[in-house]
């Protein structure tokens, strides 16, 4: 324990190492937070659930905190639902017989200086034989009334206002999410339309024809910002992937590093203790392994068998067993083997395994620590590399998969920098954090490096 504290104090002499430790601790806290607040099943559901989970999120939205810098030009989403009350309200009057009006008025305040990204209206009708009908109007703050059309309402009708071609034509070629909000004074050829702020209303004049038949509506005016990290091309909240990517990246990097370092270490110890043909065999396998194309082999495994991240982890460890570290550790073990205490252990009849595992390995175990810490980022990036090649885990949301989505959808080309920068930033943080600490550890454990 005392040794540990002393060692830790020595580590804090390196300012960069302190920064690295802070980063690592931060990432671990983030990983714990992700696992605790968002259980595994929930995370997978949020990432792969389908339209009903992310249908209300804007597509390719920037993170919400961007508005701090851009001011009021990026609107948030506005959602109005006649079933949930709020500012939306219903009116119903008897007309004749079983026919009743079912009007829905959805007023909302629009304050942004930018246009929304999309407008969708979801209509839900309940009927047995005769479906309800609805006629929609758009009322602007300056009192204009723009008809949006009429429709018969089935059980679940989606009325995508922003891709309505006829409405676009009626609005003089402006796409509806612009035309419906534009200040008429600014609408002119070759002028940049500006939205009119104030109270808008979507009025649905509905008619039901049967006893018990109802009409409900939900209006989604999609904004341009969402959540902590924005959304991707499928409207998914990127925060989920960034959060859950942390424990996955850390676990993958850590397990791969521990697995390959420990096996390498054990193999080197066994080889150098027994010597002879076993040692020679281990040496030759190491040399062959050094020239094996690791990444292509992983790609083959990913393409032909499984993309499951834990299976890939197994292959990574297997390929790392006979890494070049064997040669390094062997050189150290050869020195340890000649030490008097080993000779003494041999003399009183300690078994081979006892000598290897209890006397030789603990002696140089500390040198494992730096190499093990510096290996972690390598594996974190390996996972990201595979994901970028499209060989990421099919179920789990990871940083690499977000990067891959961004890459395949041309995020950089379309100027959606946040989509690339967020996972990249986290990857970089993880990589640098561990690398910096590993470098400091290396200097502490290899005094030869400290001198120069």
């Amino acid at each position, binding site marked *: 324990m005392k040794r540990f504290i002393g060692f830790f104090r020595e580590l804090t002499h390196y300012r960069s190492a302190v920064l690295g430790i802070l980063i690592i601790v931060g990432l671990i806290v983030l990983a714990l937070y992700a696992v605790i607040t968002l259980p595994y099943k929930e995370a997978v559901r949020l990432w792969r659930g389908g339209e009903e989970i992310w249908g209300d999120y804007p597509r390719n939205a920037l993170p919400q905190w961007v508005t701090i810098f851009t001011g009021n030009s990026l609107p948030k989403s506005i959602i109005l639902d006649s079933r949930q009350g709020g500012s939306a309200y219903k009116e119903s009057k008897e007309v004749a017989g079983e026919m009743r009006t079912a009007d829905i008025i959805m007023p909302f305040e629009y304050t942004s200086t930018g246009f929304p990204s999309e407008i969708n209206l979801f209509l839900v009708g309940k009927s047995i034989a005769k479906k309800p009908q609805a006629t929609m109007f758009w009322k602007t703050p300056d009192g204009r009334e723009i008809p949006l059309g009429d429709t018969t309402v089935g059980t679940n009708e989606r009325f995508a206002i922003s891709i309505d071609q006829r409405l676009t034509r009626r609005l003089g070629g402006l796409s509806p999410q612009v035309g419906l909000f534009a200040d008429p004074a600014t609408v002119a050829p070759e002028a940049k339309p500006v939205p009119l702020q104030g109270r808008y209303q979507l009025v649905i004049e509905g008619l039901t024809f049967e006893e018990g038949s109802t009409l409900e509506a939900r209006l989604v005016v999609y904004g341009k910002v969402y959540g902590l990290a924005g959304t991707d091309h499928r409207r998914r909240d990127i925060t989920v992937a960034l959060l859950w990517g942390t424990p996955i990246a850390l676990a993958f990097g850590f397990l791969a590093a521990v697995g390959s370092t420990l096996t390498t270490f054990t193999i080197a110890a066994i080889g150098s203790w027994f010597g002879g043909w076993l040692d020679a065999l281990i040496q030759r396998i190491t040399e062959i392994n050094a020239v*094996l194309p690791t990444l*292509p082999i992983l790609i083959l*495994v990913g393409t032909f068998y499984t993309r499951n991240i834990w299976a890939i982890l197994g292959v990574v460890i297997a390929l790392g067993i006979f890494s070049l570290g064997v040669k390094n550790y062997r050189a150290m073990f050869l020195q340890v083997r000649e030490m008097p205490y080993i000779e003494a252990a041999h003399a009183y009849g300690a078994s081979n395994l006892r000598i290897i595992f209890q006397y030789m390995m603990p002696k140089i175990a500390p040198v494992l620590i730096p190499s093990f810490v510096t290996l972690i980022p390598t594996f974190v990036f390996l996972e990201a590399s595979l994901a*970028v090649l499209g060989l990421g885990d099919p179920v789990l949301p990871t940083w690499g998969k977000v990067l891959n989505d961004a890459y395949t959808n041309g995020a*950089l080309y379309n100027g959606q920098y946040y989509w690339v920068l967020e996972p990249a930033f986290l990857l970089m943080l993880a990589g640098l954090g561990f690398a910096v600490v590993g470098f400091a550890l290396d200097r502490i454990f290899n005094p030869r490096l400290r001198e*120069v």
Partner: protein
Amino acid sequence: MATETLAKRQWALPKIGIRVPDTLARIVKYVLYRGVALFVTAVIGVYLTVLIANMGGYLDTIRKAQIREQVGAMVLGDPTLQTLPASELRQRIDEIAAIEIQRLRLDQPFFLRSINYLTDALTLNLGRAEYLASNSGSRQVRLILLERIPATLVLSATANIALFFTAIFAALFLSRRYGSLLDRIVIAMAPSSSVPAWFYGIFLLLIFAAVFHVLPWGGMVDTPVPESTPAYAASLLKHMVLPVAAMILHSIFIGIYNWRTFFLIYSSEDYVEMAKAKGLTSRTIERRYILRPTLPPIVTSFAFTLIYLWQGAIILETVFSWPGVGRLLYQAISIFDVPVIVGNVVLIAYLLVTSVFLLDIVYALLDPRVKVGGERRA
């Protein structure tokens, strides 16, 4: 890590009056030994690839399907058989295909078949692609690959050579100014190499292509391809800037850091002190007493950089749409073109082994222990 163990070894100083035939024999012997060892390595690597690829029976299925297709085309295209009814034609195709499968020994046990695949792969008899084709329109995997090699070679050779020399000279420079501000900056920057080259590539693309629009998004030359050679070269250079910069950013600091440490260890050797005492200029000391004995480990580490770069190129080329071997592998994965994937892995294994072998020859020429047959103890 490799450099470290090497640094621990004692380097025998060259003896005076080397007998030339003896030296040559030793070098040849060493190169032969390494050649055989590396060939065995290549065979094992390729065999492993074959095993992995065929475990699910993919290669067999593909070969059989190809045979059926060929036989089918042959039978249906034969004018003398046109009059036969369809069922008889099909029976005929089945019969000939069965004979062909037998002839190619596809009905043999897996071990024997795997040996067949191994010899095919080793002789670069890589079969035909399922979907991809070379620019000249050929479906031969070998031709598709051969067409891509120059692109990869241009990129990695440029980056590696630039890296190698910059790192060595910067390290020599820093080892003279050990402890200076610049030296400390380089040490502080060394961990940045934990981030792979393709990752820097994304940032470079963001800055220079997306924001400033000064350099191209990717690819190797402009479209339409410039006709005159100088224009072609200029266009190629313009496209090479970002990928090469990404590769250099990735390994320059760790390279300088390693060499600097290495040179510092060597410059504290007794014979360097001795040379200083003799009053030799620092240039001569550097060249003759520091650089000369460190060359073999430099070459070794260069071999390992090459290994990583061949593999790292896969994603770098993908990010920059560079039409090399790596991007081909990415394309083949995304459309599941199995023969191309296997052929590509085999090629990468070959490239690795060849580059290591070439460097081994250089090593043999540089290492005095090989040259004079000095002591061979670990």
